[in-house]
């Protein structure tokens, strides 16, 4: 006869039953409250971003107090229209001018105010360019809105000596701590998108 002595892990006791029930209830509550918690934290995080004054350098002076979005395209993948310098587009779609001194190519759309939701601002501002800066994105439950295409350039099209490329968001010149969907904007804020690699 062969006897096998095995440590015994017996069935759940009353503490485990309470823990099972309680943990499911708590999990449901946390998932329901998560968007509100995240909004609150994002709002606090927005206070830590650098001053927006310096991020207006190179932009039209009439936008100094306004919200601006800039999209910068890589040298190897220039935009079909905004391929020379950075084109400055006002809220009505009119072109204010082109700045060739920024050593970048792309477009900035500015002159806005009153936006607090980053995604709303981005969609409204890029729409002003009449489709030239159309935005493509999907929603991931963990990351929120993930921007994959701006102005016809999909991040998956970028090739080079790296693992992958993505559209990277900056807030007032610094790396944004949250995605565009969680970004809380203040008056005079400048956000910009650049292709980054990993």
């Amino acid at each position, binding site marked *: *006869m*062969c*006897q*096998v*002595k*095995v*440590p*015994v*892990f*017996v*069935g*759940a006791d009353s*503490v*485990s039953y309470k*823990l*099972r029930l*309680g*943990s*499911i209830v*708590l*999990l449901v509550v*946390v*998932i329901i409250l*998560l968007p509100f*918690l*995240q909004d609150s*934290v*994002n709002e*606090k*995080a927005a206070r*830590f971003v650098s001053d927006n004054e310096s991020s207006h350098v190179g932009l039209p002076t009439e936008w100094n107090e306004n919200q601006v979005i800039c999209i910068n395209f890589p040298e190897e993948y220039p935009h079909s229209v905004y391929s020379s310098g950075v084109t400055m587009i006002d809220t009505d779609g009119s072109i204010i001018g082109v700045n060739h001194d920024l050593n970048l190519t792309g477009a900035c759309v500015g002159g806005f105010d009153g936006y607090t939701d980053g995604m709303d601002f981005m969609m409204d501002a890029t729409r002003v360019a009449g489709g030239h800066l159309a935005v493509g994105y999907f929603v991931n*439950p*963990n990351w929120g809105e993930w921007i994959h295409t701006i102005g016809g350039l999909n991040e998956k099209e970028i090739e080079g000596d790296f*693992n*992958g490329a993505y559209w*990277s968001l900056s807030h007032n010149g*610094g*790396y944004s*701590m*949250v995605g565009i969907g*969680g970004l809380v904007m203040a008056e005079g804020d400048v956000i910009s998108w650049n292709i*980054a690699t*990993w």
Partner: protein
Amino acid sequence: MLDAHAIVLSPLETLVLNLSLLAIVAWSMWKAESSLDSGSSLTVLALMALFAVTGRVLLEPLPNVQPVTVIVLLVGIHYGATKSIGVATLVAIVSNLVLGHGLWTFYQALGWALIGVTGALLSQSLRIGEKISVPRVATLSFIAAFLFDWVVSISVLHSIPLESLPVYIMVGLPFDLAHGVGNVAFAAWLSEPLSEIMSRHSPKREVVVAPVKSST
């Protein structure tokens, strides 16, 4: 959202579908395990890794709620540090083939490996006698959620300066909390059944062989 031949499922419908699939996977693995010979620890490890991968992929609709952390912790408790590191790394790589592989895969593997090693180091403290202590595993798995998430957050230092890291970690706290509470739920529901399976096939188990009586 899942596009199924022109039928677009809502996030809730997708979650229900995924939970059903996960239940089928869990049931089939449980049946498969019951037919294994005692001591098939490598097969059990493979089943654990497969369940962790499936759970992580299928529970994607729930933000940061997945069973990997608890499974790696339990593997560390029952099978030791080395095997938990193997399972942690394997789960990170295979699940990221679906969810997206990149630099973060290394940090995820590192984070889960640390949790597995912690489980191995504290394996005696996480038991009461020979019985797994579910409240202790649940408490440790709650803490482990924050540990794992902060290790993964270090990967952002490739993009941002060190002084920005505290703000980045602060922004992630609600997701850390969801991970922690999810871990408590997985610990409450999975600790005992998975411990029973793993201990049944543990290479450390004591085998007592009695003399075979002749039937004649």
